[in-house]
């Protein structure tokens, strides 16, 4: 299965993933870092010390003062991207085929949308010589450390394609793992999940990440059916994460309450993300990947 088609790859060439926070990559890159070095951004002058590169001497200042000063620059660093893809059982839930047939639409499952999204971001990062890592939150939890080679991208794609979707959809362990591996600050963490779990542990983990200076982007995936419960009569809902859990209910009576709950749930997440300065991006499985990326990346560029 090819997660990224040429059209998406072509689109990704048009964009640049610019970190909003101060990064601390191991290599030189496109993003600001706290390290002083050979960047383009002048920081200050300091007295020359033995061993300093002569090329950083400011000869104009020497001409005026006959003292040696060295120019100190902020070093541009590479970005480390952590893509966290929710591979719990809830992401496995296939779109209702009858529902699609009635509406003559073709939808992809949530996990596939999440995988494509995560891989696209990884692709974008690797394209600009940044490092991209991947965490697949499922059972078991799998992860790939950030790297910037194109081979690494293939590895990530293979990993996403071959990992099964099962288990409870709690992202907190995966976020904990990222927190441990990413250290303090400088990473961009993209989370793609349907958020179908109790939100508090995850929010706490996200808040921790933000507190450590990481930038977080949250892609909330949902199918149209899950957004509107556009069904009729009695439905036997079987939980995708735990098949033994079943809910038999008259949808005509539940529909409006459910929609209100969805709105409330999204509002809660949006409010949390605003407070934590996390990008909250709702994503539907009926949305095209190019459209999602196009809109999000353009908005990110405009907001700087």
């Amino acid at each position: 299965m090819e997660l990224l088609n040429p059209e998406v790859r072509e689109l990704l060439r048009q964009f640049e993933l610019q970190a909003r926070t101060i990064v601390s990559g191991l290599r030189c890159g496109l993003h600001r870092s706290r390290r002083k070095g050979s960047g383009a951004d002048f920081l200050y002058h300091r007295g020359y010390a033995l061993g300093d590169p002569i090329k950083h001497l400011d000869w104009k200042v020497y001409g005026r003062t006959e003292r040696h000063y060295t120019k100190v620059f902020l070093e541009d660093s590479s970005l480390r991207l952590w893509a966290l893809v929710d591979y719990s059982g809830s992401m496995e839930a296939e779109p209702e085929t009858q529902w699609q047939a009635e509406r003559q639409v073709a939808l992809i499952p949530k996990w596939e949308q999440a995988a494509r999204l995560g891989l696209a971001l990884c692709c974008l990062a690797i394209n600009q010589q940044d490092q991209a890592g991947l965490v697949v939150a499922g059972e078991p939890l799998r992860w790939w450390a950030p790297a910037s080679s194109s081979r690494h991208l293939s590895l990530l794609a293979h990993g996403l394609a071959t990992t099964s979707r099962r288990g409870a959809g709690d992202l907190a362990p995966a976020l904990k793992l990222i927190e441990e591996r990413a250290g303090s600050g400088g990473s961009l963490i993209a989370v793609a999940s349907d958020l179908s779990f109790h939100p508090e542990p995850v929010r706490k983990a996200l808040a921790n990440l933000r507190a450590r200076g990481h930038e977080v982007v949250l892609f909330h995936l949902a199918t149209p059916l899950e957004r509107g419960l556009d069904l009729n009569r009695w439905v036997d809902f079987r939980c995708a994460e735990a098949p033994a859990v079943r809910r038999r209910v008259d949808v005509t009576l539940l529909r409006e309450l459910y929609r209100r709950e969805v709105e409330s749930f999204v509002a809660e997440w949006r409010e949390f993300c605003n407070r934590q300065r996390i990008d909250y991006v709702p994503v539907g499985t009926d949305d095209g990947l190019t459209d999602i990326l196009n809109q999000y990346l353009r908005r990110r560029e405009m907001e700087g």
Partner: protein
Amino acid sequence: MGVLQPGYLWFLLIGALPLLIHLLMRLRVRRIRWGATYLLDRALARLREESRWWYYLLLASRVLVGLALGYAFARPFLPSRAGGGRLEAEDVHYVILVDNSYSMSYVDNGRRHLDQALLLVERLAERWPRGERFSLYTLADGLAPVAERQRFETLERLRGLLAGIRIQDGLVDLPVAGEQVRQALAGETLQLVLVADRQALSWPRLDDLPAAAAERPTLWLQPPVQAGVNLAVVGIDLPGQVLVAGDLVEVRVRVRCSRNASEPQPAVVELEVPGQGRQRRTDAVLPGQEREMIFDVRLEQPGIQAMTATLRTHDGLEWDDRMSAVVAVRERLEVGVFGNPEARAFDTLFDYLLRTQPQRLAESANPLRFQVGDWNALADYDAIVLDDPTGLPAARLEALEAFVRRGGGLLLSSGPRLQAGEAEFDHPLWPARLAATPAIRAVGGTAFWTPQTTSIPPGPLRALHTGDPDGLAGVRLYGYWPARPKEGAQVFCLLDNGEPWIVGRAHGFGRVVLLTSGLSGLWNNLPVRSGFLHAMHRLLAAVVEGAELPLNVGRGDDILAPAQGEVAPALSGPLNDSGEPTVAPLAAGSRHGRAVRLHTGRLPRNGLYAVRGVDSGSGGTERLVAVYDERAESDVAPLDEARLVWLAEHLDLQMVDDEAGLLAFLDRLAGRREMYVALIAALLLLLFGESLLSWKVGGGHRRS
């Protein structure tokens, strides 16, 4: 609550349909692998908190919709407490009782009540299934079958039967009629429908009806009782036989106040007499009581006259309650005087009065014409004055008896010529038994008897008398025959010693008045008193009072006249002022036993007619018939609300105001009203349930 179509009660299972659908829908669920269970659980928790009972309310409303629909198709109806209105579709015998009494000839909205009643029967029959049994009875002349246990085939045939129903004289006896119907049709499931007016229901004996029976008739009232009307004209009473032009008569209009009035009701009654304008009387009538309002009316014109009493409110507004009385007024009474040939005082006195008081007599439009009696022309007289007879042959006594029995009036006096032991002395015709010897005092002496108390009824010329109200003051009696009134006799005047002087008694259709002291002046000074003439008029009016009133019939009604053998009765008239018929007698119609039916619809014009029939006793009878276009009668008694409630509870009374009301009532009989109510209830429940659903779940749903 009952149902007309019990077989449709299985429709009640429709009520279980929503439950069944509910269960089926739960079984036929759509299985979906759901990825947003967390959100679903949150919504379900909210549903359990606040909306679950709405769902069961919706389910209950749907169940009720089904029940209401099922009940509607079963055609429910509400029977009364008396259990009437059993209308099972199977084996119903439709029985119609039509009130065809005179009160049904009341014209309302241009149609007689009888015509309206027959139309109601037609409208009812339109809803009968073909082949159903029905019986049709009339009530005026007892319970008379028009059709009995017949199968209903076509409406035209029923119309033919209805066309034969005529107005008849007689009383409607509902209890007896009801019992007769129940006995005649015992054991059958009856739907009895009585079409009657308020008069039939006002009859006091209706209160004697036993309480509810299952086959209690359904009563239709026509016309309706008007709300708020507490007064009604219940009678116009005329003093005896008012048939003489020039009579000043007291017309008494009786007004009754209903029992449910809370206070005395002011009643203003106007009596309208043709040629005399209107007179008005005002009185207050206590609740539940009657008041008489007396009008002095002079009947000027001979012929048929209709006087109408109209009830008005105190502010002049006219109520729709009036009564008309039709009277036949003759030009005068013919009086044959058989005086005492030995004492001409009686005739001389009349000559004197006619000479000395011609103006007063002319003003009075003297309704009496005295003439010397002729034993061979007794039939020409309305009254006979027979003064102090003696030695009457048996043939004359027999002729006199026949004259009185057929309706003539006899003013008889017993004077000094009468001898005890004579044939006429103790004749059955006489209203009193005379003593063997008279009481005598010296004529012209100081000892005499005087009239003490009188109760002579008011009569003609009363207004002429200005002095003594009785006209007998100053009369002195020097001799009289002590008399003992016979059974049924009425003493008009007593002497100061308590002995009767003037005694009257009915005999046959006529009346005899006896003066025990003669009229010739031999034993008294009566003829020379100023009030003598007035007294004579009043006594003659009293003797003709018992005569039968002319039968007032509407144009087109039938008259039953007695007949015997091949001799048929004849209807002659209209009579002229002399009582002679102006056209040839009308041939009799169909024979019914010992009577022949005469149909007045074939008469050339209205007027006073004479029916001469054959009677085995007297050899012939004559009765006057006043044929008039319109016979209007007020309802006899106002029906107050309390009585209506009583009737409704005991008789399954149904009120029908108009044709629309009738149709609605028929619908109710057919169970349609309740059916409509049930359908509307179902619709409302459906709307309620669906609006509840759309309000609760919001905007409905798009069906796939």
